[in-house]
């Protein structure tokens, strides 16, 4: 049995009280709940405070470029489907610099789990607007307030029929851990957008602000995450009440399934010379 201590790694370099701690803890709990061994797990990330997370739990790590966690994660999963692959980053990393990759990851539907630490601000570069910062919020580089509208990652993913769309809150670790475990178990691309207070640069969306607003969609037993229209409506809800939980779920064919990629057989080339000479005959 895997335990939390199996995932022990180096100490995080985050601000005291950062929402990232809750997400880190939830990921560990999810992996332990699924009894994943650390060498079976690959965490891919880009750059930013969130993207440092893979260093803080013992597992395979591909900490690449800003915005580019998804391409690396998808390719690793194509090549070795036996790995449990998570792509982790902040809102700037995943929805800004990596926005195009996010769109196409939705299309490909490769069996990986994307966890976006959404604190609605740029932390590591010290307080500029992110793609999810609310309109009108003033920052050092948007002194008159952000003019652009924020991205809603949930409606975006649901509109593209992403098979698993969830929202968590880093202040509710057990619930978040359940969402992450469900996302990993979902066969296909899963998105978990995590509301994460930034204690240094976001003075609006604080822990207390979220605690007062978030509610679990499951609280209403009639909520059906398999209804696309209801899910879209739910994803649009924001303000006094903010839904968390599995917002949308559907089962489409997963990429490796469509292409018949089963194991990590791309690493093995049996009887290869025969195959090659066969191929070369086409060019004779």
């Amino acid at each position, binding site marked *: 049995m895997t335990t939390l201590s199996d995932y022990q790694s*180096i100490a995080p370099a985050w601000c005291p009280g950062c929402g990232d701690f809750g997400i880190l803890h939830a990921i560990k709990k999810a992996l332990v709940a699924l009894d994943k*061994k*650390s*060498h*079976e797990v*690959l965490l*891919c990330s880009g*750059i930013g405070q969130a993207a*440092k997370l893979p*260093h803080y739990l*013992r*597992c*395979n*790590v*591909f*900490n*690449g*470029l800003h915005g*580019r966690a*998804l*391409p*690396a*994660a*998808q*390719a*690793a999963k*194509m*090549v*070795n489907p*036996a*790995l449990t692959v998570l792509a982790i980053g902040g809102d700037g990393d995943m929805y800004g610099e990596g926005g*195009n*990759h996010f*769109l*196409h990851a939705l299309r490909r539907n490769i069996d990986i789990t994307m966890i976006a630490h959404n604190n609605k601000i740029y932390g590591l570069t010290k307080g500029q607007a992110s793609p999810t910062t609310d309109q009108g919020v003033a920052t050092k580089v948007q002194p008159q307030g952000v003019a652009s509208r924020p991205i809603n990652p949930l409606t975006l993913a649901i509109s593209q029929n992403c098979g698993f769309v969830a929202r968590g809150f880093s202040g509710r670790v057990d619930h978040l851990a359940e969402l992450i475990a469900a996302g990993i178990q979902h066969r296909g691309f899963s998105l978990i957008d995590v509301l994460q207070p930034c204690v240094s640069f976001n003075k609006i969306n604080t822990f207390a602000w979220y605690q007062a607003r978030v509610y679990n969609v499951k609280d209403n037993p009639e909520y059906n995450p398999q209804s696309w229209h209801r899910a879209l409506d739910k994803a649009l809800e924001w303000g006094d009440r903010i839904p968390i939980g599995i917002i949308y779920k559907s089962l489409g064919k997963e990429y490796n399934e469509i*292409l018949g*990629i089963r194991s*990590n*057989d*791309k*690493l093995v*080339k049996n009887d*290869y*010379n025969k*195959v*090659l*000479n*066969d*191929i*070369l005959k086409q*060019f*004779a």
Partner: protein
Amino acid sequence: MKSKTFDYVITIGGEAGQGMQTLGVLLAKVFLKLGYFMSTLQSYQSRIRGGHNFFQLRISSRPIHSLRRGTDLLVALDQNTIETHCRNLNRQSVAIFDLARIKPKPGCGQMLGLEIERIFPGAKENEIFANIVYLGALMALLGCPSDPVEKLLAATFGKKGEDVIVKNRAAFRAGLEYILGQSAWKNRYQAPAPLNPQSSLLVHGNQAIALGAAAAGCGFYSAYPMTPSTSVFETMAGLAAKANIIVEQAEDEIAAMNMVLGASYAGTRAMTGTSGGGFALMVEALSLAGMLECPAVIVNAQRPGPATGLPTRTEQADLGFVIHAGHGEFPRVVLAPGNQEECFWLTVHAFNLADRYQIPVIILTDQYLADLYGNVKPFQTEKVKIERGLVVEAGESYVRYRLTPDGVSPRAFPGKGPGVVIADSDEHTEDGHLTEDLNVRIKMNAKRLAKLKSLQRELLRPTVQGIHKDNLVLCWGSSLGPCQDAVNQLADEGSKVSLMHFSQLWPLEGSKLRSWLAPYRRLICVEGNAGGQFARILRAETEITIHAKILRTDGKPFLQDELAAQIKKHLRPVASGRKKRMIRRKK
């Protein structure tokens, strides 16, 4: 007449979509089967229909590796081809065309107008059959045997069913017999009977690269389509099922390159292909490959820039770019194949170097070589050696970036052992975790750069043609063929000139270069760019002066006779020759 040397250029021209390429490739196959020496040149525009494209084949009774000026046989599929190529025809040249569509142009070689639909009524239902009628006519004009061609047609169209084979054969025979029935035209060119039919592959440069990758055990290819690299992509996709390769179309080149690194990290050999603009987008991830010490093979099929430039033309102007691309300092290798065989073998070599040194390796080719057909000895796959370098299973205490004297750390794949593999784009400690310890930084940077020393020892020796030390023509990459032919021609004409071709452009090593160049008295560098980029690099590495540069930037490859004339101008004056010239000047 059997031993008479012959050397003909056939040009097939028309609008994009008229099937010039299909006919050209068929002819290339025919001539290879007949044992002729052959080289091609494909010129096409960045459009799907219309415009003016042409496919040229030069066939010869002696080894050739490039085109020359002029056309002996012109197949004109539209009026524009006659108008455009008129100036390339000499008095003996023959232009073949459909009288029903094209007006003869007096004064342009000899006009051989055919009534295609009368010769072969089937051409009415599908104009593509006209091309097969021309194929028959060409065979009759050249006096080539028809049996091998009929067999080839059957093999080519076999998949489409018996009916298609029968129609194509009929079209071929109609063209053939029509010319054979005209004593003025039949066997006009008297090409000798099959010379020395050595088996040859019909592969262009890009196909050879893809085959090399498959042979090297590449398991992942991701790319975004971009001319002139796309046929690597298409060939890889065609091989994918048999060769067990995952081929993925990425959303952009940034994704393509990052996917390659993800796949390579996960344990398979991975490659991408693009052209200059796409390579520019890959550059950040190229630097990532340097930092992660992640093997990757990147094909850059050059086209003229800057920016979109001339999408379907050729140039060798990305050399400086690929050598220096990427922020920070890290080792990389740049290989530049000169022909299809080098495309294959250097791709295998690229994968081995990438794995053994855990670095990115760039294969620098261009549109000319990408589309180039010629005599290619079948690749002896049993000679392919797959060297994956220092690979271990990740034990409990495994660290990815172990400091070693030669800079190469044992590499493990995630999930292939109880340990974990941590790769990080930040500066990192031996175990792969990010660090800001500046002493670690010094050691890690030195470790990565230490690989350069061993890499320099592996610098590929340039190939040399000729024994004369008076003049040396230097070239790299796809300029090999035209330079071989030009230097051969000059040697035949009595000039004392040799050729040196470089297929590895980076890293170089000054003392080796100096020893290779020292015996020669005059150095003439031939390359397809405006800056003389390779000449400049040679100078920087050796402090040796390149005496003359022959540069081309019009988007076309060098041609044998043009190039020979240019080289001749730069050769060291021969003593007697100098006198003569002085006398002439006095007059």
